């Protein structure tokens, strides 16, 4: 009897192969999400995990849930995460400072304990389980997965389903309320008031920061502005973009100042021909 049950619980070879491909992918994505320093990398690792889980749902005779997983989770929710990451800023990475001493260590210990607890309970309680399966003659029978789920939602689960609509409307209104910034009430300052505030010292400097490419030979954001004496203006360097180093610009600065090698008569740009 027990042997027969265990025989019924084994899965087909194709499902085993897809599990051993998709399961490690999902695990690798989850681990990568934890260990990636950059939040954008974490989000992309989580996308990998969710895609693998969607495929696992389809393998487990839940095609509707698999497609909803891919469309809603990886399509909508993770893109929302990426948008918020872009709004908050790419440099909003984690700090490595531990505020609570030994927090990482204890989190790891607790995690191992939780894993042992859950896997032990699951493995013991399901060691000889009978796999009923959602074969064609049972729950998925006749009309297929989507039609049966639809019938369940609109009969047995009708009231919870209506409640989810209320929940979604509440969430949308809440997001709008939280995300709305009333700029009118805060009072916009006129240009004159801004100038006076600048010269009273409310800002770091009275003039705007030097833009990239001012007094330089290029207008790229990655090019720092040059001061009149030819040195790099430190305030024009972007925090996010690695700026072109000063020695790379040395030749161009010489050509602007006129101290560089004289251009050939047929040269299109000064200093270019001699450098070859």
């Amino acid at each position, binding site marked *: 009897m027990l042997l027969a049950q265990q025989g019924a619980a*084994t899965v087909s070879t194709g499902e085993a192969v897809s599990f051993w491909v998709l399961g490690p992918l999902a695990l690798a994505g989850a681990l990568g999400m934890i260990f990636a320093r950059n939040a954008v990398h974490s989000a992309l690792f989580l996308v990998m995990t969710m895609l693998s889980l969607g495929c*696992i749902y389809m393998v487990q005779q839940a095609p509707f849930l698999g497609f909803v997983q891919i469309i809603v989770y990886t399509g909508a929710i993770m893109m929302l995460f990426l948008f918020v990451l872009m709004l908050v800023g790419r440099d909003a990475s984690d700090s490595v400072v531990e505020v609570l001493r030994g927090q990482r260590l204890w989190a790891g210990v607790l995690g191992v304990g939780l894993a042992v607890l859950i896997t032990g309970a699951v493995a013991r309680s399901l060691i000889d389980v009978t796999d009923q399966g959602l074969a064609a003659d049972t729950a998925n029978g006749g009309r297929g997965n989507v039609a049966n789920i639809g019938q369940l939602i609109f009969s047995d689960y009708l009231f919870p389903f209506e409640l989810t609509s209320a929940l979604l409307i509440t969430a949308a209104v809440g997001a709008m309320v939280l*995300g709305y910034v009333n700029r009118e009430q805060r009072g916009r300052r006129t240009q004159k008031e801004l100038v006076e505030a600048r010269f009273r010292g409310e800002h770091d400097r009275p003039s705007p920061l030097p833009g990239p490419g001012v007094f330089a030979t290029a207008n790229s954001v990655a090019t720092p502005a040059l001061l009149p004496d030819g040195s790099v203006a430190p305030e024009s360097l972007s925090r996010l973009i690695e700026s072109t180093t000063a020695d790379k610009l040395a030749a161009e600065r010489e050509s602007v100042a006129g101290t560089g090698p004289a251009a050939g008569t047929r040269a299109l740009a000064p200093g270019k021909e001699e450098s070859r």
Partner: protein
Amino acid sequence: MTPTYYLLLSALLFTIGAVGVLVRRNAIVVFMCVELMLNAVNLSLVTFARLNGDLHGQVMGFFVMVVAAAEVVVGLAIILSIFRTRRTASVDDSNLLKY
């Protein structure tokens, strides 16, 4: 291999998500770890539906997805509004309810 392996995978994913919530400091990454835990529970719901041979587990997974979508929308809006006032997305820096 038996369908129990799916439950083991689900347990491991849930654990990784829980450890991530404890370890990470960036509020958005903490939120992603919560999403991972919800996904792990969804995987076990789908597996239970298949083991029991009816669709109630799948319907429950569907409801979990709906609730997760609503939660993400509100949570990200809260993170954005905190970032607007405090200029930080770290869970350590937000220690006041207002301002």
